[in-house]
């Protein structure tokens, strides 16, 4: 009977432990879901290149409230630079000649990114001019909240294909006059002017597919059409084109080309759609008065150049709330060889100091021990090799040395400390331990009041978690998370009650 009761208790304990582990395992599983959910938002610019761009944007007058905003803005900057067109006709005309030089400069720096990481990077005129115009175009003084809804899917080769969810003029991203789509090379070629009945002279542009003419458009404005990619309602990617028909009207669409819709990315697009509804995905930032929209704005570091500091082993978190004045000071400090606060020397917490101190002492002790053993070995070897006469002489010398050392070194210590002091010392340590235990107990009693804190997770993980928590089961209209939470609450409550009852009964 007793054995059966014990087995039952053991079984209950095992079930309780499994339930607790289920919570932990489920939390880990959620983390995996977050990572998966973040895939469609994979962005082409990462690492030190990303931080360099963020630094340039800060120098151009932007202050980002979060690392997510800084990351998205820097990537948007890169997509606009790389694909030649930001989706705004006026801006494209403005910078069309400079952007290629800027892209060339940026790619040169990015190739040597390993060498520049952790140092000061000089910003070339082309890069600065492009960045300044990009910032001036998109941002105004004060708070900005600009939603571009640009996403990328990652193909089998790891290439990013930028796309938008619809062709709204404010949302879509134009990708330039040439594009590779489904293995074919597409290009717009100007074919002179043609006479159109009731309209007059118009500019004719031919759509070339691998060198073959497959379509055409006519416009009153002499400007080549631009390609863009968008997700259809069926979550497939499709190629489109846009052109300035007149000063005030924009034409859309191409139909006579071989490449159709691109399938295979439905899952990524669906997840991106779901996330876009849940999270703020914008390039918001605060524009500094007197810097934003000031075409003459420029800066100079202490060495007379235009440079920006890229933090060694830093993260985008570094750019949260960073103003151009602060970054300029930091860059000047880095140029002068001074340690940069927040990056080169971080304030250690007490446990880091404690661990550091203990490890240093352990290392010191180990070195001491090794040194002692080496001395001992050398002494033994020396003794072994000498003749008896030398041993006698050596022993006398050693004895004198020992006597001298003992008298010289240990005497003050003996006078300084007694046995009672050691007792007091251990008592102090014991009292400190008791104080620590009391503090720990008080802390334990207060853990219920600790507020939720997601700062240990990155922004993508937090967004993924929020997204997961808000998924509603359609029929019963309850979120998956609420259902799980309620179920686990019930089970743990029962486990707690059973545990208390068992203890009360056994007592």
């Amino acid at each position, binding site marked *: 009977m007793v054995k059966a009761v014990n087995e039952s208790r053991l079984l209950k304990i095992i079930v309780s432990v499994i339930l*607790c582990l289920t*919570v932990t395992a489920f*939390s880990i599983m*959620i983390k995996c879901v977050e990572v998966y959910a973040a895939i469609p938002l994979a962005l082409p610019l990462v690492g030190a290149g990303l931080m360099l761009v963020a630094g340039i944007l800060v120098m151009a007058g932007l202050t980002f409230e979060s690392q997510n905003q800084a990351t998205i803005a820097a990537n948007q900057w890169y997509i606009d630079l790389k694909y030649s067109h930001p989706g705004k006709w006026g801006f494209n005309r403005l910078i069309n000649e400079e952007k290629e030089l800027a892209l060339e400069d940026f790619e040169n720096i990015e190739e040597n990114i390993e060498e520049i990481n952790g140092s000061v990077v000089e910003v070339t005129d082309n890069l600065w001019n492009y960045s300044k115009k990009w910032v001036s175009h998109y941002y105004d003084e004060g708070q900005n909240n600009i939603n571009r809804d640009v996403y990328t899917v990652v193909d089998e080769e790891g290439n990013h294909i930028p796309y938008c969810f619809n062709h709204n003029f404010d949302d879509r991203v134009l990708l330039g006059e040439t594009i590779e789509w489904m293995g074919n090379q597409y290009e717009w070629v100007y074919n002179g002017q043609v006479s159109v009945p009731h309209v007059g002279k118009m500019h004719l542009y031919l759509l070339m597919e691998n060198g073959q003419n497959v379509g055409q458009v006519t416009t009153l404005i002499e400007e080549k059409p631009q390609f863009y990619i968008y997700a259809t309602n069926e979550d497939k990617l499709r190629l489109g084109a846009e052109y300035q028909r007149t000063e005030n009207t924009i034409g859309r669409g191409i139909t006579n080309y071989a490449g159709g819709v691109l399938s295979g990315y439905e899952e990524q697009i669906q997840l991106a759609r779901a996330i876009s509804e849940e999270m703020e995905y914008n390039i918001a930032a605060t524009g500094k008065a007197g810097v934003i929209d000031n075409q003459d704005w420029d800066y100079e570091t202490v060495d007379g150049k235009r440079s920006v500091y890229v933090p060694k082993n830093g993260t985008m978190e570094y750019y949260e709330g960073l103003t151009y004045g602060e970054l300029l000071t930091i860059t000047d400090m880095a140029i002068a060889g001074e340690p940069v606060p927040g990056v080169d020397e971080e304030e250690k*917490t*007490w*446990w880091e100091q*404690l661990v550091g*101190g203990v490890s240093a*002492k352990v290392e*010191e*002790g180990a070195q*001491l*021990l090794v040194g*002692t053993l080496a*001395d*001992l070995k050398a*002494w033994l070897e020396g003794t072994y090799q000498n003749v008896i006469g030398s041993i006698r002489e050596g022993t006398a010398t*050693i004895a004198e*040395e*020992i006597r*001298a*050392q*003992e008298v010289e*070194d240990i005497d003050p*210590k003996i006078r300084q*400390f007694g046995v009672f002091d050691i007792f007091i*010392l251990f008592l102090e*340590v014991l*009292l*400190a*331990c008791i*104080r*620590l235990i009391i503090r*720990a107990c008080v*802390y*334990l*009693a207060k*853990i*219920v009041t*600790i*507020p*939720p*804190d*997601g*700062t*240990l*997770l990155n922004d993508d993980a937090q967004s993924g*978690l929020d997204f997961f*928590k808000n998924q509603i089961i359609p029929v019963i209209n309850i979120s998956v998370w609420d259902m799980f*939470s*309620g179920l*686990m*609450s019930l089970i*743990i*409550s029962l486990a*707690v009650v059973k545990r*208390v009852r068992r*203890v009360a009964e056994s*007592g």
Partner: protein
Amino acid sequence: MGNVLNKVREAIEALTDQLILLPDRIDSITFDDNFVVTKFLGLIHYILGTPLYTLFCLFLLIGAGFILYNIAKKIINIIGIIIPKIKGMFIIP
């Protein structure tokens, strides 16, 4: 040999110094908002949500209470064995 003894003396001195500093180091341990355990518990709170986190804390507190109860019981038993006269002064259920 003199060097050996010197090294041993240095080691003892280092140990004594560490022992002198140890109470201050232990006292410097504080459980504030930046404490890594606080941040970790905050993360658990964020992931689990308030109802589950409250139950988790309840489970933790009850467990800690049982452990402290058992420890106190054993300590008093040990004291009772060492000093037989004290037995009967504390009634532990």
